[in-house]
């Protein structure tokens, strides 16, 4: 990794905790090869024609979205059917379960319980360890977009929000992203100080997962309130500004080899990817003149949902498993 990408790696960790991404503002901040491309693109008239051509022929794909929705629905239904049909493959709920007998425990729930209870039994440790390894391998916040049931429902609510926004009936009210870090700390402190897992009582992930498995309850009203807030007030507010689970898995994603890779040369900097992204601050690198190198990995707050990959008309964004290219 070059020094520039190392600096960006650290910067992206700060972005995960809520800071704004740093802009490269000196020539030394950008690698010579990337500078050359930035210079070439500046005021290049041929590029405009090329861009229009690419636009006209771009085929919008839903490949990754469909794969992701299928995975998410399958995973959640596996929970439901394991209980309802007694097939016992994935028993429990998203907070803690057993996959054909192996313990799996959600990292944030495990953390809450450990802080509140201050006593850790082996099964808890084994389950947490297994899930930690799993999500290090698959990309940290991959949990959010590929497994979390709230993510899917919020994605549908987001469509309503965007429709209303287009009609100018609502506007997206953005908030300070550092709030999520504050919530994470508050809920961790509350669990530790009061000995009670407060966050688990209001976690829409847990509430929805249990509702899917054990039947609906009044706790769903809280999930509904969040969705209403997101539709009429602030786009994807829970996932963007509040959910401590996202931050926990984001931290896991720091060292994960699965990520989205950005290639500078083919990009027309039109920002379609940023429009569909849940966490557009991780895509700051696609803004004209911002990429510090010709290839830039996207940071840990990325949920690896693949919407940008589907949307990009030039194939400048793609999934990458770090290290695999070296083997091939």
């Amino acid at each position, binding site marked *: 990794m070059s020094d520039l990408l190392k600096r960006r790696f650290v910067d992206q960790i700060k972005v995960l905790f809520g800071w704004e991404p740093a802009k490269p*503002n000196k020539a030394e901040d950008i690698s010579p090869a990337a500078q050359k491309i930035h210079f070439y693109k500046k005021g290049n008239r041929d590029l405009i024609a090329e861009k229009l051509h690419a636009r006209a022929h771009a085929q919008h794909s839903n490949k990754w979205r469909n794969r992701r929705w299928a995975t998410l629905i399958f995973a959640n239904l596996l929970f439901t059917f*394991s*209980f309802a049909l007694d097939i016992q493959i994935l*028993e*429990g*709920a998203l*907070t*803690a*379960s*057993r996959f054909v007998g192996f*313990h799996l*425990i*959600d990292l944030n*729930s*495990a953390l809450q*319980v450990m802080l*509140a*209870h*201050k*006593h850790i*039994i082996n*099964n*808890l440790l084994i*389950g947490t360890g297994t899930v930690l390894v799993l999500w290090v391998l698959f990309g940290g916040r991959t949990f959010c977009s590929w497994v979390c049931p709230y993510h899917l429902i919020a994605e549908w609510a987001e469509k309503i929000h965007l429709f209303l926004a287009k009609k100018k009936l609502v506007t997206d*009210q*953005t*908030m*300070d992203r550092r*709030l999520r870090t*504050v*919530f994470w700390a*508050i*809920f961790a402190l*509350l669990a530790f100080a*009061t*000995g*009670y*897992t*407060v*966050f*688990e*009582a*209001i976690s829409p992930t*847990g*509430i929805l997962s*249990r509702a899917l*498995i*054990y039947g609906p*309850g*009044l*706790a769903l*009203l*809280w999930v509904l*309130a969040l969705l209403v*807030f997101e539709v009429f007030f*602030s786009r994807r*507010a829970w996932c963007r*500004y*509040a959910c401590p689970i996202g931050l926990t898995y984001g931290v896991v994603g720091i060292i994960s080899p699965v990520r989205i890779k950005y290639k500078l040369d083919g990009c027309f900097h039109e920002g379609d990817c940023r429009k569909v992204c849940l966490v557009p601050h991780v895509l700051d690198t696609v803004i004209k003149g911002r990429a510090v190198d010709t290839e830039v990995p996207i940071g840990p707050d990325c949920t690896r949902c693949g919407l940008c990959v589907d949307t990009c008309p030039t194939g400048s964004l793609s999934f990458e498993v770090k290290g695999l290219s070296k083997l091939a």
Partner: protein
Amino acid sequence: MSDNDNDRKPAAEVTPPLSKAKRQTNRRRVLRTILLTGGVLGAGLSGFLPLIYSQKKRLRPPGALDEKDFLASCIKCGQCVQVCPVSAIKLADLIDGVGVGTPYIEARAQACDFSCDAVQCVLACPTGSLTYHKPAFMPVRAGAALAAKPILLAKEKDPEPTLNLNERMGVARLTRPEACLAIQGKGFKGQTRGPDFKGTMRYMDVDRWKPIRISNHPYDVPECDLCARECPIKGAISIETVFAPDGSKRKSPVVHEPCVGCGVCEMVCPVEPTAITIEAREVWNT
């Protein structure tokens, strides 16, 4: 970059002063952020309700830690719910006030009759909220510990007849003696709890491994002894001859120390409302 270079800094690098509109937008953003903080924390406070309600005692599954430790350690996954052969365990909802997603037993509707033989829910629990071995640093309340491992009548002929349970869930108590059929010297004939009652239980003389609806198992007893007859624990309850205040002799159910508080007596009691109830988390007082 040396200090001298600052003079030649291009204009673009100097942060321009914020316009009035931009400052206002920023201020609104801060307000909204505070609003969301308040909203989520407010909802979070509702999570504390069970601590306030914890005075109101609910029957937890067998092997549960004391209420405060239980609430701290339960990860709300429902694996205990899934393994229970008689579906005795339910997950609490928002208004139950005993912790969203935490397991409890409503003994009158469906008691734990230990059909599983091994206290499966304890085995399933991933966090030790339900446990066979309570950590040494957690104190056992006086009277909560059972004097001996309870003998499960269904397993009495097995090489290992006991249940791996060290503490009781609660204690059965004859709360409405005036309604008790045994005390009145009455018998009972028919389906206890009526034909529509959905509760299930295993009857050893029917099938050891398959619990059936108690409505499919009608009774005909000259003197009601259903609570003692169906109690799954050896020596936990019996029908004794006692002296009434006026000196006359009569029959009455008497609860003994081995009672673990499973709730079968409460479920099978034929009178409405039940004459015998489980006092959840209650300890044995001699």
